[in-house]
């Protein structure tokens, strides 16, 4: 790899954290065949939840901070294993909380913004189209590449942190225009309306195209929340980091169906995907906000449960930014009065829900439906928000 003089200096840095970060990027860059580095505008750090990284992670982050590692670009953080204020109400143990707080302290010392959300683009970190960034968290990567039009690979925890510290990342993969061309054409014949429809489509598509770049035709609508759900699902069942939706995310013409693999998504595929994702019934927990809920989603949930009682627990996961509005507008009170909770900073998958006694969870997120069985020993009910809530309203 060709390194600039500044990059050579980073490799020789007296600050161990900085030196190791640069070594890591150069090593990875060589593995990827990158010719040079590219400077980045921001980073998104993963490997934040104590449930995910355990004691090795706590020791690493504390040790790395002690080695002088400090971010040099704006860096936001993935969800933690608990709501940093409401962890007791969640039922999280003191031991867990203590470890999660040590992680938080190490992150703060390194200058990482304690945002604890997978929707940084809804919480103050909005890159510009075309901007090079180094983001981890597959749903955020998908959104920032496809909807915002920035450029990032799907970074891992250490590589994203290394990029944040050095302010650069190996210029390979989706940082290069030639790698951003679609290589699948997906003609959507089913009616895709609700957020869970978009999620189901993503779950199906990701499984088939794996880590390729799909281009969807036949989708009429889709605003930020629907695209958020689509991208998250494809990044979970597959490893899609970039996609196109004709007329929605791009004005560019679809690839000719002779040039790329072409698939079609039929109504029967949609129906089958809902069935595929549902592995249980009678959920003890209904959980929304994977990725983190927008204010619109929270408004809809509050309006639906207002004045009602629920036969299950209800978690609405969101960022601390959006929860500020939910609190101010009374939606948190409304949801709590119905027996639910609005949780900031965490998510259904990276919080220890299996230790809290839940065995079956209901979700409108195909990403959650894909992960909950493996990560949290959950059986899953997958449906759209309204249908799930109507089931649990007394």
């Amino acid at each position, binding site marked *: 790899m060709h390194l600039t003089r500044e990059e050579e200096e980073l490799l020789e840095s007296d600050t161990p954290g900085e030196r190791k970060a640069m070594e890591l990027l150069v*090593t*990875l860059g060589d593995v990827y065949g990158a010719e040079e580095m590219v400077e980045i505008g921001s980073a998104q750090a993963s490997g934040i939840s104590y449930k995910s990284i355990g004691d*090795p992670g706590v*020791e690493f982050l504390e040790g790395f901070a002690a080695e002088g590692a400090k971010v040099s670009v704006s860096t936001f953080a993935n969800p933690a294993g608990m709501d940093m204020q409401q962890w007791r109400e969640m039922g999280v143990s003191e031991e867990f909380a203590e470890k999660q707080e040590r992680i938080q302290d190490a992150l703060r010392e390194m200058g990482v913004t304690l945002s604890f959300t997978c929707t940084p683009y809804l919480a103050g970190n909005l890159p510009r189209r075309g901007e090079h960034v180094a983001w981890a968290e597959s749903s955020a990567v998908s959104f920032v590449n496809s909807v915002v039009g920035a450029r990032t690979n799907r970074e891992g925890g250490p*590589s994203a942190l290394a990029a944040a510290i050095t302010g650069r990342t190996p210029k390979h993969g989706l940082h290069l225009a030639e790698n951003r061309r679609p290589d699948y054409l997906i003609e959507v014949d089913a009616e895709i309306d609700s957020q869970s429809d978009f999620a189901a489509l993503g779950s199906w598509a990701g499984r088939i195209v794996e880590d390729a770049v799909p281009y969807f035709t036949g989708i009429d609508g889709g605003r930020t929340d629907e695209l958020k759900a689509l991208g998250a699902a494809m990044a979970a069942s597959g490893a899609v980091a970039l996609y196109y939706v004709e007329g929605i995310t791009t004005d560019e013409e679809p690839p000719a169906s002779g040039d790329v693999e072409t698939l079609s998504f039929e109504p029967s595929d949609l129906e089958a995907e809902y069935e595929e994702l549902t592995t249980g019934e009678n959920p003890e927990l209904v959980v929304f906000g994977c990725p983190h809920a927008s204010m619109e989603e929270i408004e809809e949930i509050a309006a639906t449960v207002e004045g009602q009682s629920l036969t299950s627990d209800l978690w609405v996961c969101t960022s601390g930014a959006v929860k500020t509005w939910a609190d101010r507008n009374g939606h948190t009170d409304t949801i709590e009065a119905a027996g639910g909770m609005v949780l900031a900073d965490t998510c259904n998958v990276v919080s220890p829900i299996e230790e809290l006694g839940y065995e079956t969870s209901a979700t409108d997120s195909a990403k959650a439906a894909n992960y909950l069985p493996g990560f949290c020993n959950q059986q899953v009910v997958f449906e759209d928000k309204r249908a799930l809530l109507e089931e649990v309203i007394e």
Partner: protein
Amino acid sequence: MTGETDDRVTEEAIDGRAITDGRGEGEVLRSSEPVSFYGAVDLSTGEFIEEGHELEGHNVAGKVLVFPRGKGSTVGSYVLYGLAKNGVAPAAILNEETETIVATGAILGEIPCMDSLSAPLSSLPEGERVVVDADAERVLVDGCEVE
């Protein structure tokens, strides 16, 4: 150990690719299975605790750890870092093909690491002392000649 024995002490040099730099030496501890570090190793002692794994019960501290590749959770990188921080990391790591979990962990933990050796991993004599010289991109095997 295989092959003819010889009272002469000879060094056999095996070429390879350096993943990290540095130099480490120790007794070979080899596994024919890939290794997923997260949950497999006791961070404070270096003891391999994963039930059913070939290396169960062995201690990696100060060894030249030889295995095909890493796998599993990316937290494995942090495990290697933690072992180093606690002074119980392998002296060096040798793989067939190093993937990112082990590469990252070796860099963060400053553990010399090489792959793509010019001889099969199985030829490295179990329990014998070797020197992993990543700076020179070679492995030196004392004692018996390697076939």
